[in-house]
């Protein structure tokens, strides 16, 4: 997993609540058996005017000029600013793979759906919860300032605006540890293999019907 320490990036605003993972990556692209290549189909139904199909060359498809990621001022954005309950719905990790493949390193929103939030952490994408009031102010600032970029410092747990205003955010220590180190959490869990075997031995006595 790619590590996340500090990142400064252009902010793209996606101003709608309850953005679901079907919207982030529509179902026809979930037929892939790979983890990569989902970026061109990120937000496919909002981004293009036609209906996308797997394996299609997206460079020649008609784009929806009204969709935020198609506006030249947001080209190269790597921080997505979003509204409440971002990533709700399906557990498809393809949603995070698509955001990552497009180039987003972080998503800032007042709240996230649980499964999406967990999936981000497994892929080096940082989900940041900030108060709804702060998110409102960031939306207003992005709208008025061309090239608006935020600096995210994960070790310090801060988001800094171009004007130097600093907002702190919370993150579980374990998730932070994995993200900062770019660690493989399966490897970390396997360090406790003896504990898992001891648990299994005890459970096998208590509840034998759960095994075999």
């Amino acid at each position, binding site marked *: 997993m790619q590590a996340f320490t500090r990142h400064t990036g252009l902010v793209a605003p996606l*101003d*709608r*609540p*309850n953005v*679901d993972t*079907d*919207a982030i990556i*529509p*179902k*026809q692209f*979930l*037929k*892939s*058996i*790979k*983890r990569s290549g989902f970026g061109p189909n990120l937000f496919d*139904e909002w981004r293009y005017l036609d*209906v996308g199909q*797997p*394996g299609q060359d997206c460079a020649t498809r008609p784009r929806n000029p009204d969709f935020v990621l198609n506006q030249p001022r947001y080209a190269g954005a790597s921080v997505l600013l979003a*509204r*409440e*309950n971002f990533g*709700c*719905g*399906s*557990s*498809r*990790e393809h949603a*995070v793979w698509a955001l990552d493949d497009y180039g987003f390193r972080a998503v800032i929103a007042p*709240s*996230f*759906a*649980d*499964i999406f939030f*967990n*999936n981000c952490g*497994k*892929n080096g994408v940082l989900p940041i919860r900030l108060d709804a009031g702060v998110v409102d102010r960031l939306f207003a600032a992005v709208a008025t300032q061309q090239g608006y970029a935020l600096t995210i410092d994960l070790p310090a747990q801060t988001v800094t605006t171009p004007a130097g205003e600093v907002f702190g955010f919370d993150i*579980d*220590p*374990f998730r932070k540890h994995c993200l900062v180190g770019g660690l*493989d*959490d*399966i490897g970390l*869990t*396997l360090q*406790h*293999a003896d*504990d*898992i075997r001891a*648990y*299994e031995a005890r*459970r096998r006595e208590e*509840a*034998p*019907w*759960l*095994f*075999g």
Partner: protein
Amino acid sequence: MSAKTLYDKLWDAHVVRTEADGTALLYIDRHLVHEVTSPQAFEGLQLAGRPLWRRDAIVAMADHNTPTDPGFTEIADPVSRTQVETLDANARTFSLEYYRIGDARRGIVHVVGPEQGATLPGMTVVCGDSHTSTHGAFGALAFGIGTSEVEHVMATQCLVQKKSKAMLVRVDGEVGPGVTAKDIVLAIIGRIGTAGGTGYAIEFGGSAIRALSMEGRMTVCNMAIEAGARAGMIAVDDTTIEYLRGRAHAPRPEHWEQAVAWWRTLHSDVDATFDALVEIRAESIEPQVTWGTSPEMVVPISGQVPDPAVEADPVRRSGMEKALAYMGLTARLPVTAIALDRIFIGSCTNARIEDLRAAAAVVRGRKVAASVKQALVVPGSGLVKAQAEAEGLDRVFTAAGFEWREPGCSMCLAMNADRLGPGEHCASTSNRNFEGRQGAGGRTHLVSPAMAAAAAIAGHFVDVRGF
């Protein structure tokens, strides 16, 4: 010892170790696997050279991509076929319990798991699918995970988890005739919102929940995720235990009494405290219909499409306006004026035998309205299909003009060939009305099986209670 919630009991029974920050390594008893979210996990496991920790914890089947055409033998879409063949190959490589295409037991993973007794009270159950919350109906801790976590469970039989807060949603009283588990859960989501359960594990309780069959309880827990909850669960009682007796994966006779003794402890203690409490009177719940693009955008059948102009919160107002534009509806339109192009009775929410019986009871002796282009019934599993056929339900549906299909996820998410065309309105017994969920540009209205059946006959929504 202090009083515990059902969630506390399930959690405590599965903690392998706890870190200083409260993060726990949680043991997973049952892992359900399907074709869409597993190929990258199997590949990851093999690339890392790691063995599968516990083969016997897994039950696998393809459901999302599979065709539903009667008697199909192969998958026409080459991309879908590759994904199913990848699961075939992984099932062979890892010697998994696998219900392949053609196996009479195959179907939607959340219908088949309980049907086979693979979901038992007191288990932790995971699957790379958000509707895994369904299995909480058995007094299990069940939740959806992403593909990285699927790989984590395959490699370690554990997940790194932080405990959620506990919410009790209590529905007391008795629902009226024609009001179902689907209406109960839609009413709950309408009350607390699609993010109302975020950060919580929800226990559903109260006399109206206890009165539900296992099928109804699964419908309620299935949609806990649509309220944003990590998991939904219902305490074990006689209904749970009787459902499990004799099922393929149920405890063997020599363990049965021991298992039942433990299962009977799987309820919240009377003096247990919850972080949040929601109370709803069952009598207040009418048949529900969603009007928008989020399950919380729901109104009773006697209601109207709401008017964004009266919404004070600007973010919510804008969300309502976008939803109305997408759905092609106008504010204050009576729900009964919404005409339907297609009808879908199926999905892990509502494709069990009781659902098909309820729909067939409405359909019997009637015809699908001429204005409806297609009405589909997709049973949740091969065994549900066989049971329905033994009861003659298939003939009730086909005589009325419904299509009777092979089991699978089908038009719930339209990964196979079953889908809506742009602009088409669908009365659907599934769980999500998101933009494009049932096909690009499609407009989904979530309802109960009885309400979908009545809408098929009338050609527009109608109150099934007077139908």
